[in-house]
């Protein structure tokens, strides 16, 4: 990927103590910045430097954990800067990934019940629902229109983390079409497992129950973190999402939600998914047209 084409300057390097190097690709979120993060993470993985412990790609930055007893901090920085410089001339604009369909029950009773407990002092508009608020701040008619905008176009997992296996999702639309909603004024101490959340321009799926500050729009029907690795989709690893995964949300009603839950309980549930090669240039040139192409990959799977 050419960073000139993407409009990104050189990254900012800074230390997180004596065991972490932080590389900020850009201050602002963009698909181009996230692609550069993933390319750099891949290059560093391939370099297999002795002493590198964790390589954590995030939305627009990369966090690297290293053991300074095995790898001098200054030397690590030189290596990463070299890898970054090499990215600029290489064609990194394609990503072999997959598209996954995630069934979601929007406007479910579980998140509604929790939201009810965190209104006054927590939420910007305590008298309404999170979805009503999200529709309003985005200038949309109502919750139904917000939900349509939310699942109509696909998303990319631009980061996995916070807690085990939680994907941050960035919608593949132009910046002026992005759905942006402030986080809660103060974080909740509770969020139902598999809540579909949204804060800033990011959606997420809470992999486990716990604290959270994102607005709550619904619940996903199937697990995304399975430490017992019971379901077939978790045979290789207990965490389902990988950075770069593409996501299509599919709204389901209560009956279908329950049917999926039964399949999960029986151990027979499989995510509908298909391999795709994602082309950054094509995606930036005509997001909605390109999205139609990648969504076709799901048909027949």
């Amino acid at each position, binding site marked *: 990927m050419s960073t000139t084409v993407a409009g990104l300057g050189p990254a900012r390097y800074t230390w*997180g103590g004596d065991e*972490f190097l932080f590389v900020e690709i850009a201050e602002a979120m963009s698909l181009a910045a996230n692609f550069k993060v993933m390319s750099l993470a891949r290059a560093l993985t391939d370099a297999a430097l002795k002493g590198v412990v964790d390589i954590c790609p995030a939305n627009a930055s990369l966090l690297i954990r290293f053991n300074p007893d095995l790898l001098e901090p200054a030397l690590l920085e030189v290596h990463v800067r070299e890898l970054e410089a090499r990215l600029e001339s290489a064609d990194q604009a394609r990503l072999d990934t997959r598209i996954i369909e995630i069934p979601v029950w929007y406007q479910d009773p579980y998140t509604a019940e929790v939201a009810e407990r965190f209104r006054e002092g927590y939420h910007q508009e305590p008298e309404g629902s999170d979805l009503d608020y999200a529709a309003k701040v985005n200038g949309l008619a109502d919750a139904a229109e917000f939900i349509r905008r939310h699942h109509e176009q696909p998303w990319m997992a631009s980061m996995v983390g916070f807690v085990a296996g939680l994907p941050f999702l960035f919608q593949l639309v132009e910046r002026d079409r992005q759905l942006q909603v402030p986080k809660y004024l103060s974080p909740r101490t509770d969020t139902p497992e598999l809540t579909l959340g949204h804060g800033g321009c990011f959606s997420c799926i809470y992999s486990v129950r716990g604290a959270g500050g994102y607005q709550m729009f619904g619940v996903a029907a199937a697990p995304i973190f399975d430490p017992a690795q019971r379901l077939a989709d978790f045979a290789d690893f207990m965490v389902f999402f990988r950075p770069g995964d593409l996501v299509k949300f599919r709204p389901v009603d209560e009956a279908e939600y329950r049917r999926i839950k039964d399949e999960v309980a029986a151990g027979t549930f499989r995510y509908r998914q298909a391999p795709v090669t994602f082309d950054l240039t094509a995606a930036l040139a005509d997001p909605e047209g390109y999205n139609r192409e990648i969504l076709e990959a799901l048909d027949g799977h």
Partner: protein
Amino acid sequence: MGIEITKPGLSTTVQDRGRTGHYNVGIPQGGSMDQYSAELGNLLVGNTGSEAVLECTYMGPAFTVDEPTVLAVTGAPVGVLVNGEERGQWRRLELVAGDSVSFGMISGGTRFYVAVRGGIDVPEVLGSRSTYVIGAMGGFQGRPLAAGDRLPVGHPVAELPSGDSIPEELRPAFAKEQRIRVLMGLYDHRLTEGGRANLLGEAWTLTPVADRMGLRYNGPGVAWKPREQPFGAGSDPSNIVDAGYAVGSIQIPGGTQPIVLHRDAVSGGGYAMVGTVISADMDLLARAAPGTVTHFDEVTMDQALAARAEAAARLEKARTVLHG
């Protein structure tokens, strides 16, 4: 064969040196919060150091052993009772089958450790026996211990050392005031001069909001430079586009209470970090009790690496002393 828990204590978990390599999907390193104390316990009972121990928080468990057992209690100062009789910390204790162990109240610090010869033999998950409670994985069934749990004990793989206690000068201190060394960086350029001066020059007091994920402090607060927020960052000047969090990094949501992330930290989020506690002082943080007056002292990378080498040398010295 092993240990039967009769009272669980406030929060007792199985921990070891922790698991790395999975922070990229949000699985934290975990492991004993006060690594030095846990290592000294393992040394006393002739373990290699990678064995799992029990980490006990504030109020310890009670348990019985069903076979001869060698154990040692290290960490926060606490009475160690075997069949009701005080036996002491920082020394090797030899129990016979049927002995029961309980603990008094801690008189400082937060966590103490029970090391058992052979180690707590729960299955490894992703290369570690550490409990990650939020993810319900690792340790004993992915959770803090409960009454009735039976913990298997592993087979010893090394000889017992000739020494059977840790000399006073090699034991860690559990003080009510701490100086914590910090390498500034990450998003510290976003602090005002005054904000930076407050963080590094003023005293901060540890609140009760302190656990394995992080420690929250009260103090004068800090100010952020005003700016137009980048796309996707959120509206508060302490917000950034969600990024990875270094373990030990200091974030100050809203500019009010600094939070220092520890071993079960969330792996990322949207609050600007302004510096990171150096690796040599992470154990020190783990020993802080609520109310501890804390000073954050800025150091350089070279000083951080020197402190790291000193910490390693201290553990090595303990090993040498015990093996005489």
